[in-house]
């Protein structure tokens, strides 16, 4: 069986010229890391996409066609992604889903713009479910790109809105990874705090190298020495878990406002250290979902395990938008679908979700939640755990989280 597959692989290497058979399918290329350091995150996303697609297919698909996910491992490399994009185009795939790494997303947007200009008949639409660089819906906005996650600025806007009401916050420490995302978080945090809470003092603005720090104790010592009561961080992965663990070890009494406290691997790695210390700003709050949203979660957890949190709902939402747009356009042609998707609204797990036409940025409510012991009213656990959960502290309405855009969209 497997040998035959291998043989197939070899043959395919030489016979890539053959056009692919199925035309009665809508295929989505999922270009994300499925191996390497970020492989777990990529696999999580793939599972959510496959789950969403199965649900859609169970209801008969779209326009009589089934949706099919074609996973492609880009190893978190921009260059690799461009090659996979070409491979997807060759296979006649017109829809790309990606989310991990703004570097990859940026490269894809660039390449798709060029491709669609050179071969408009084979245009590609890019469904971005998690790459949050604000540029993509501002200066670098593209007609072919749709973002289903809140961008860095929107999350910070929601966060600072919430902080307006938190009078006990007086000294803030910014601690971020030394690369573009961390720089962006630090920059926008300073700007928005100055605007919404001028009384708050930023007592530290620290950048540490990405994924290179083993022991965060020295950083925590600095935070402690600064007297900060609040830490804002865009860190993800082990850079976040280790930071929180070090804070617990030193008994640092400060709240950690994070972007990625709920993502793959972080809740189990933090464990007790995160309780009542870690907060998350996100469009996702498992325990605040409406009945429909709960039904989706129940099905997901039943299928993949009770500790699995479908926190990348943006993936499911993107699939839903795609299907609705196809139905509205009565076509699977990318240009028509993209046009139909603009300004479309659907009911999400927390209320109405809108795809803003000006810049293709999704607009939805946001939540500030705290990492706590699970159980009781908190039905749904945090990802990868059974006994921890996120408790929503506040909801920021869609309108408040939306930010103005500088996008000047060029439409075909």
């Amino acid at each position, binding site marked *: 069986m497997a040998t035959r597959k291998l043989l197939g692989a070899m043959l395919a290497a030489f016979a890539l010229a053959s056009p692919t058979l199925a035309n009665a399918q809508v295929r989505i290329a999922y270009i994300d890391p499925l191996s390497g350091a970020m492989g777990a995150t990529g696999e999580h996303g793939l599972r959510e996409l496959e789950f969403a697609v199965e649900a859609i297919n169970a209801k008969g698909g779209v326009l009589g066609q089934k949706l099919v996910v074609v996973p492609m491992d880009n190893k978190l490399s921009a260059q690799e992604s461009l090659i996979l994009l070409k491979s997807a185009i060759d296979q006649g795939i017109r829809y790309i889903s990606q989310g991990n790494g703004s570097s990859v997303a940026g490269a894809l947007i660039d390449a798709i713009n060029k491709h669609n200009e050179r071969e408009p008949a084979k245009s590609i639409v890019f469904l971005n479910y998690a790459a949050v660089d604000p540029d993509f819906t501002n200066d670098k906005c593209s007609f072919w790109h749709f973002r289903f996650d809140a961008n860095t600025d929107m999350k910070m806007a929601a966060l600072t809105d919430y902080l307006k009401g938190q009078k006990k916050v007086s000294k803030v420490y910014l601690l971020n990874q030394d690369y573009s995302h961390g720089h962006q978080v630090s920059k926008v945090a300073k700007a928005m705090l100055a605007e919404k809470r001028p009384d708050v003092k930023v007592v530290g603005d620290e950048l540490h190298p990405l994924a290179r720090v083993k*022991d965060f104790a020295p950083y925590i010592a600095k935070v402690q020495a600064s007297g900060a009561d609040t830490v804002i961080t865009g860190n993800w992965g082990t850079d976040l878990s280790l930071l929180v663990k070090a804070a617990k070890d030193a008994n640092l009494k400060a709240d950690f406002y994070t972007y990625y406290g709920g993502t793959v691997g972080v809740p189990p790695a933090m464990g007790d250290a995160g309780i009542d210390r870690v907060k998350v700003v996100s469009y996702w709050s498992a325990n605040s979902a409406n009945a429909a949203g709960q039904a989706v979660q129940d099905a997901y957890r039943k299928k993949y395990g009770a500790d699995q949190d479908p926190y990348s709902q943006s993936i499911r939402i993107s699939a839903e938008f795609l299907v609705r747009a196809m139905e509205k356009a009565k076509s699977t042609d990318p240009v028509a679908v993209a046009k139909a998707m603009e300004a479309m609204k659907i009911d999400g797990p927390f209320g109405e979700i809108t795809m803003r036409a000006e810049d293709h940025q999704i607009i939805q409510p946001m939540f500030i939640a705290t990492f706590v012991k699970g159980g009781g009213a908190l039905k749904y656990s945090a990802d990868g755990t059974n006994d921890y959960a996120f408790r929503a502290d506040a909801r920021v309405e869609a309108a408040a989280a939306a930010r103005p855009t500088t996008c000047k969209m060029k439409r075909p």
Partner: protein
Amino acid sequence: MELFFTSLLNGVTYGLLLFMLSSGLTLIFSMMGVLNFAHASFYMLGAYFGYVISSYVGFYPALLLAPLAVGAIGALIERYGMRRAHASGHLAELLFTFGLAFLIEEVVHLVWGKSPVPYRVPPSLDGPLFTLFSATFPTYKAFMMAVSVGMLAALYALLTRTRVGLLVQAALSKPDMVEALGHNVPRLFMLVFGGGVGLAALAGVIGGNAFVTEPGMAAAVGSIVFVVVVVGGLGSITGAFVASLAIGILQTFAVAVDYKLPFFDRVTVSQTAPVLPYLIMVLMLIARPRGLMGTRET
């Protein structure tokens, strides 16, 4: 002042942790002349084995069993892989361990998945030990420091006070001679390799729950352990110890400094902290390739 003392304490802690991570590498290097690129991978295996074993029989038995198990695997790898590579030269050996690191990471992916596993500090060692100014110092870190110092003592004794240690050192320079005296040199090397791997695994059992047990943990410490061994002097246990402390303290203090570097507009000393060890290594290798206390060049 407060920051100074906290930093000093953190620096020493981190230094001892570095020593714990690199002692097995030094052992193998000083006795066999092999730079084991897969060292960090065995550290990772130790953490995963520690996680699995401790979930059945508890943390303390795992502290013994996991290093033994991983050490046995190491010995087998020496017997059936390294030895073969050794025959085709030094470079082949180095590349063998390089490839091994690659493969072990894949196996870990396969067996335990790509996400971190919930490997926790045992309750008896959890919690603060004492309070320095406003910060607490966790018991578990003190435990780690104690183990690290214990490793130093044990290794030092092994190398300089036991017959086995002297024999292995002799075998390193004159294998034929030692063999002619009736000792089984290959088996000796196998034991040493297994021992060094076991030390890495012990560090893994202890480090895995203090930090995060995940497939990327090997890559995260992979190169820093080389820095320690190289700066300390290839093949010198005391050198590695001194280098660990020096690097630990230096790096920790660098984090505390917000002074902006001249010529680089927004870069502070603190930002460069984790890169400093590599800079030290390169300078050391150029100026004094023997390292702080090494006895020979490579």
